[in-house]
């Protein structure tokens, strides 16, 4: 399928933004955690799940979405949020636990919420799927053609919420797309040790809905099947499952010893980096020049750097603020 230049550049920008955001986060997270690593120390404490390598899963479908469409994401949400267009400043500030954060510092990196772009995420595996179903239900009740996308990992596809959500979505013909980001691992558990089928697109058969499999983290193929799924949903034809074989360059969380996998694995994946693949394609097909990318990258770095500055320079909440916001 022909992918127009605009969309490809958009995908490149989102993927590159996400990658650079995560690389800065990798560094920021280690602050205060050296020489002795302590998960609770530093300006960014707590668990940190980074998405380096998984960018195509997010950008390849969000390119087909607008602010009216809903996205729910799991514990590894940064690339999804960035592709959906979440404002980086409150997002970054939240991760730094600042009062200017999207949750006033109460949520943290696994709990980012943005009403404007209808983005949310959470730390309980598969729990975002019914949320997407509910958003899609509201969309249908209101007669809009808005859709809802639920991102999950391949490990989450074995949780009960996966089944209940897809049955509901199919039964009620709701505009839901489930994107399974298969990064081959659920923490230390390989897909073959968690999943009784080779890929989760096959599970569409259990709900009478289509499933698509995107191999080898292919941004172009992700773009293509996502378009089919989003169009189908907008037309009121119901849900779709998309599984994409993606890459987890880093550990499950920062600090993961990764004793369960061959260090070579990540090296091999990095050699096939999807962002570089998109860039190469655009260059080869003369859709963009090195110069264009220099300009674009500058813009990207600037936006991310400003978000980090904003976060770092923002104030912490007042301790007693902890007691507010339980009820409105």
């Amino acid at each position: 399928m022909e992918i127009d230049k605009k969309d490809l550049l958009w995908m490149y920008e989102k993927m590159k933004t996400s990658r650079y955001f995560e690389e800065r986060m990798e560094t920021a997270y280690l602050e205060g955690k050296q020489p002795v690593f302590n998960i609770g120390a530093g300006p960014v404490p707590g668990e940190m799940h980074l998405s380096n390598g998984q960018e195509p899963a997010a950008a390849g479908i969000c390119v087909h979405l607008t602010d009216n469409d809903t996205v729910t994401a799991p514990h590894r949400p940064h690339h999804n949020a960035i592709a959906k267009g979440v404002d980086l400043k409150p997002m970054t500030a939240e991760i730094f636990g600042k009062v200017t954060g999207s949750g006033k510092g109460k949520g943290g990196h696994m709990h980012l919420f943005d009403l404007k772009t209808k983005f949310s995420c959470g730390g309980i595996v598969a729990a975002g799927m019914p949320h997407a179903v509910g958003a899609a239900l509201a969309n249908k009740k209101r007669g809009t053609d808005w859709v809802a996308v639920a991102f999950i990992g391949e490990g989450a596809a074995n949780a009960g919420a996966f089944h209940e959500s897809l049955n509901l979505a199919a039964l009620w013909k709701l505009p839901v797309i489930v994107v399974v980001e298969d990064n081959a691992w659920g923490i230390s558990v390989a897909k073959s040790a968690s999943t009784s089928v080779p890929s989760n697109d096959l599970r569409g058969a259990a709900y009478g809905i289509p499933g698509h499999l995107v191999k080898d983290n292919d941004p172009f193929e992700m773009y293509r099947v996502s378009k089919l799924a989003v169009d189908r949903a907008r037309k009121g034809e119901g849900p779709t499952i998309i599984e994409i074989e993606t890459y987890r360059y880093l550990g499950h969380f920062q600090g993961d010893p990764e004793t369960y996998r061959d260090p070579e694995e990540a090296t091999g994946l990095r050699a096939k980096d999807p962002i570089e693949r998109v860039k190469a394609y655009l260059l080869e097909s003369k859709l963009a020049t090195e110069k264009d990318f220099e300009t674009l990258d500058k813009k990207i770095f600037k936006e991310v750097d400003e978000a980090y500055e904003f976060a770092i320079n923002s104030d912490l909440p007042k301790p007693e603020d902890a007691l507010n916001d339980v009820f409105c």
Partner: protein
Amino acid sequence: MSTKTKVRKLTGSKAMAEAIDIAMQDDKEVFVMGEDVAKYGGIFGSTTGLHEKYGDERIMDTPISETGFIGAAVGAAGEGMRPIVELMFVDFVGVVLDQIYNHIAKIPYMSGQAVKMPITLITAVGGGYSDAAQHSQCLYATFGHLPGMKVVAPTTPHDLKGMLLAAIRDDNPVIFMFHKTLQGLGWMDQIDASIGEVPDGDYIVPLDKAKVAREGTDVTIVGVQMMTVEALKAAKILEKEGISCEVIDLRSIKPIDKETILTSIGKTHRLLVVDEDYSAYGITSEIAALAAQEALYDLEAPVKTLAVPDVPIPYSRVLEKFVIPDENNIVEAVKELMDS
């Protein structure tokens, strides 16, 4: 009561259905999801007649997928709708607790109130009819312990209607527990307390206030739902023996209306707490603790409590009767309290 003044009496279930009807009429964002809420009208009658009136779009039967459809309420609320979801029996909460306590209850806080969860979860509680260990629980404290939810358990048809209307219109998540025996259903034990005066039209009963169901001077009895009913029966008996009981209908499990309780203790100086839920970490402990912390010097006797001893609810009638407190247990406990 006088037949001159025109009063209207409804069962608990009719009172609930009327509240939902009123709320749906004046706000099109309100809709209902649950198992058997449509044609059946809700197993315990909470949505009687509403499907005929509002149709499949707004009174939605669901598959047996509590995590799916109660989780869907989160997404719909995120879009600005006001879902009412029915968890048929509170005993089934174990298959959906995550969506309730980690999501519905916490999203407003985790988002700094950017995202509100105006969801009302209605659920049936209570035993007394031999439905055994997985269909007879109250679990008041299970909800009361977890932050982010208002938890109410009205007793009278009047309060069922007024508090349900308040719950649906509250922008915070509300767990609305109704007692099966107080629904006035044709196929259950018909008790007087399940029928009562219910004003026409729209009115609200606050979600955070206990009610003095009967005034008294010698001892304060705190109960909720069926335990309030049993306490009132016991109070009548004790009155004949010259013991004056003040009966407080808790109504709100969370927050607890401390003021009403402390005022009463200040007057009677004796406290009995009665609960149909399990004893450990339950209502009886919560309110006894309130006394120990804020009314210690008012107490003229150790606090007494009656609750389900820490056993699952047994099936056989003789066994179930033994574990659920009733008027006789209350009469006995009050007498002991007066003698101590």
